[in-house]
């Protein structure tokens, strides 16, 4: 089964895909921006500041999702010795990190009119900051270590330690008294968010997911070409 993950096979798809993904991203983002900034209603409590949710929440979701995926790929890649999984993880990390930063900054901007402060050391915000540090460590590990085995081990340790923080982020609003409101969207129970706000939120999430896919494809292609450049040197 793992032969389908060989770079040669994947490159034939990933080299052609970015143009289509970019086009689709622009279309979905345009619809999402109109929905978020123009058509969606203001909140009865927070007023128009609630619109920040349409960039803040999808960014947080995607940064958490990417870190979980990186961890899964690193563990499976290490157990089954699939080097390509590490390459996929490395290519996913930059967009995950950027989404983490966007979630922190837009959360801070949202906090000012809502809570009256730019920053608070509450459980949700602090744990998101810790996730950003794990992302940073992960990216640095790829720069610091030249030896493949060392970098695979180092990134595995970083992701395994970092993944402990992910459920803490998710449940921090339930476990501690924080400034953050509890989750408004639940998969298994009824969501408290109105459909008029859920719809633009889902469109923006789709747009952000497409952007992370685009960055992943470009980064992955770059990494594969880097490997081929080394291969040409050895010819």
């Amino acid at each position, binding site marked *: 089964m793992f032969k389908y993950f060989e*770079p*040669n096979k994947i*490159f*034939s798809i990933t*080299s*052609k895909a*970015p*143009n289509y993904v*970019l086009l689709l991203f622009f279309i979905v983002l345009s619809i999402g*921006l109109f929905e978020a*900034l*123009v058509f969606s209603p*203001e909140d009865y409590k927070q*007023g*128009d*500041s609630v*619109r*920040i949710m349409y*960039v*803040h929440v999808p*960014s947080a979701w995607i940064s958490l999702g990417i870190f979980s995926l990186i961890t899964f790929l690193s563990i499976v890649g290490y157990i089954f010795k699939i080097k390509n999984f590490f390459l996929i993880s490395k290519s996913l990390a*930059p*967009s995950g990190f*950027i989404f983490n*930063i*966007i979630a922190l*900054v*837009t959360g801070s*901007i*949202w906090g*000012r*009119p809502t809570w009256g402060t730019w920053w608070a050391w509450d459980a949700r915000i602090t744990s998101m900051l810790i996730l950003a540090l794990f992302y940073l460590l992960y990216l640095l590990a790829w720069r610091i270590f030249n030896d493949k085995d060392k970098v695979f081990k180092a990134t595995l340790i970083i992701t395994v330690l970092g993944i402990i923080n992910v459920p803490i982020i998710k449940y921090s609003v339930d476990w501690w008294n924080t400034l953050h409101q509890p989750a408004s969207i639940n998969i298994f129970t009824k969501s408290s968010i109105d459909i008029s706000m859920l719809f633009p939120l889902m469109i923006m999430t789709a747009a952000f997911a497409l*952007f992370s896919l*685009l*960055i992943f*494809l*470009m*980064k992955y*292609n*770059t990494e*594969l*070409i*880097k490997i*081929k*450049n080394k*291969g*040409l*040197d050895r*010819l």
Partner: protein
Amino acid sequence: MISEILLMNGYGLYVWSAFLFTLISFASLYFVVKTQYVKERNKFIAKFGALNSERASLAETQSMNKEILSSTSNI
């Protein structure tokens, strides 16, 4: 209508700065990754061009090398 969207009942500065920061972050990451891609691809093309005919034909036997050279992606 336009001023309503811009001012957003006094929250305009916060809302627009959050969206602007997001879009600037997207554009910055896109251009950084694109620059890296173009740099590596150009390096590959230059190295491939410098190969003698025997090595070039050997390199061409690998499908991925051919695909990099003929890559139509304009990202």
